[in-house]
């Protein structure tokens, strides 16, 4: 079916219903960049789902705020003078002007530069800039303060990770994250974490879903896309990342864990006590075996422990968190955070940051190849939007395989032996499809 036969929302929903077949490992090509699909995603995924916005260390004090994106929209993540973190649409209630124009800052209130409408750190309308006498002249009958409260999103925090959703009636963050919490503990729950500097941002000409699904369940691409590793003898053995586990976490979340068989944990000894204090026994043992870990929580929250590398005689890695913000069907803004344990030794902080930057920032040796591929897929899909026959893509790796049981792997979710599976990717697309077809939340 060509895009041209789809005249409106209802016909698009029909086409999706007929052609998206995650359980058969078949996803139609047009979904990568179809503008109508993108608009649906903005409304029904980014307008409703829990989205990652930042880390509590970025808003340390009452009055601290950062401005972030939820899909196409700009929001303020602010710690109120009551120390509670809240999320507001960054639009003045008067005429929609951007209220906070900085990436971050510390303020007592937000005063709109256009007409001076002013809002407190809890989102409450405080009055106009020029003060009560002036306001009384302009609005002799007064202003309806309640109606002018900032538009607020539901905000919840898990292990220092700040999430928000526009949905008033949807599941709690806890329910949304579900089993992925166990794994997030390994990344950011194991110790007091802090964001290093500020997230890096850049634009990649891809749809947001290609990177998200890559981190969800694509361990296989490493052997080819990142084969410089073997060319330069930077990896030992030829398993190329198969060794480990694929986890279909549920709710569209997915991840892969690469493990090592050394005695010692690769994480710094200096932090062992803190880790132990924060993790349960199973988790601590898992942490000690981690060589790398990639994953994505639906829809666009990616997390990564890059493969440990030896540098200056130390074995290091640098934790990464990411979101893929949809800007257009073929345009995504990357937000990439580097976090580190606050109490870590200097060498771990310095070398970990360096490793992170060299492998997974905008100049990262891995990121480079991935962005090249995602752009190319996006362009090919764009070009094919008006093809008359449906082109199907292949999502069939690891179908109908047995899961491990608890005794073999302690973490929750459907766990598979070896990272080569796209089971979580298929669930990602199932959840995605269900969301898109859900007319009213």
């Amino acid at each position, binding site marked *: 079916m060509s895009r041209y036969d789809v005249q409106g929302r209802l016909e698009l929903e029909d086409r999706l219903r007929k052609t998206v077949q995650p359980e058969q490992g078949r996803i139609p090509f047009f979904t990568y960049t179809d503008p109508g699909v993108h608009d649906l995603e903005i409304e029904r995924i980014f307008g409703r789902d829990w989205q990652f916005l930042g880390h509590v260390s970025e808003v340390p004090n009452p009055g601290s705020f950062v401005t972030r994106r939820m899909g196409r929209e700009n929001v303020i993540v602010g710690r109120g003078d009551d120390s509670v973190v809240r999320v507001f649409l960054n639009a003045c209630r008067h005429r929609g002007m951007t209220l906070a*124009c900085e*990436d971050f*800052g510390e303020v007592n209130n937000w005063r709109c530069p256009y007409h001076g409408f002013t809002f407190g750190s809890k989102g409450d309308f405080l009055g106009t800039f020029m003060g009560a006498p002036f306001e009384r002249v302009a609005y002799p009958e007064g202003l309806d303060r309640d109606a002018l409260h900032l538009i607020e999103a539901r905000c919840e925090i898990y292990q220092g990770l700040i999430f928000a959703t526009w949905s008033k009636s949807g599941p709690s963050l806890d329910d949304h994250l579900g089993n992925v919490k166990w794994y997030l503990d390994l990344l950011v729950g194991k110790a007091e974490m802090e964001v*290093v*500097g500020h997230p890096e941002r850049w*634009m990649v000409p891809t749809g947001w879903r290609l990177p998200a699904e890559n981190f969800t369940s694509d361990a296989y691409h490493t052997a080819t896309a990142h084969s410089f590793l073997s060319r330069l003898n930077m990896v030992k053995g030829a398993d190329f990342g198969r060794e480990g586990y694929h986890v279909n976490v549920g709710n569209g979340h997915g991840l892969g864990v690469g493990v090592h068989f050394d005695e010692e944990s690769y994480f710094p000894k200096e932090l062992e006590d803190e880790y132990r204090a924060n993790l349960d026994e199973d988790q601590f043992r898992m942490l000690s075996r981690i060589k790398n870990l990639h994953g994505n929580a639906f829809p666009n929250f990616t997390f990564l422990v890059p493969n440990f590398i030896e540098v200056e005689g130390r074995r290091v890695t640098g934790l990464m968190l990411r979101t893929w913000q949809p800007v257009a069907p073929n345009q995504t803004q990357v937000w990439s955070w580097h976090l580190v344990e606050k109490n870590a030794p200097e060498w771990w902080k310095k070398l970990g940051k360096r490793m992170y*930057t060299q492998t997974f920032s905008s*100049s*990262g040796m891995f990121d480079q190849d991935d*962005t090249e591929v995602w752009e190319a897929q996006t362009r090919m899909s764009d070009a094919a939007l008006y093809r008359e026959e449906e082109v199907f893509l292949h999502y069939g790796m690891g179908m109908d395989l047995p899961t491990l049981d608890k005794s073999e792997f302690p973490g929750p979710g459907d766990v598979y032996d070896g990272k080569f599976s796209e089971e979580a990717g298929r669930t990602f697309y199932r959840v995605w499809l269900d969301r898109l077809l859900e007319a009213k939340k």
Partner: protein
Amino acid sequence: MTGAGEAVDLATRIQIQDLYSHEAELLDERRWEEWLDLFAPELEYTAPIRVTRKSPHPDTIDELGHFDDTKMSLALRVRRLRTDVAWAEDPPSLTRRLITNLRIRPGDDADRLQVRTNFLLYRSRGDLGAYDLIVGERQDALRREGDSWVIARRRSVIDQASMSTKNLGIFL
């Protein structure tokens, strides 16, 4: 006013100007091994993140960067680019670096100079007329090495809070 004219003699000024033209040529021609030779072994090669802040807050964040490299890690990047699987830059981008606004200032001692230049890096890939611009300032520390100069530190300040090139598979 602090200009190049005061910090160094004319011969040095010319030598440094040529150094930058030469460097740009090496990069645009992808002669990366020769390019590496321009750097001192102790090189720090960084590029701070830019942020949108109100005055007078700083708009650079040095705690994290687009690059955080040493000479050794740059050499690894170059070795990688020489494999046949460096997809991001093979086929390579067509690039051109315009280096202007040379400013030379005294360094910590007689064998050191602080050199700033502005750059515009034009990059095209693919076949439909698109291109990226990366614009900013290089803040270099040069060290005398015999009768020549090597770059001992480079801090490249890119003038965007959200970079508009898909990756930094090319060097600044």
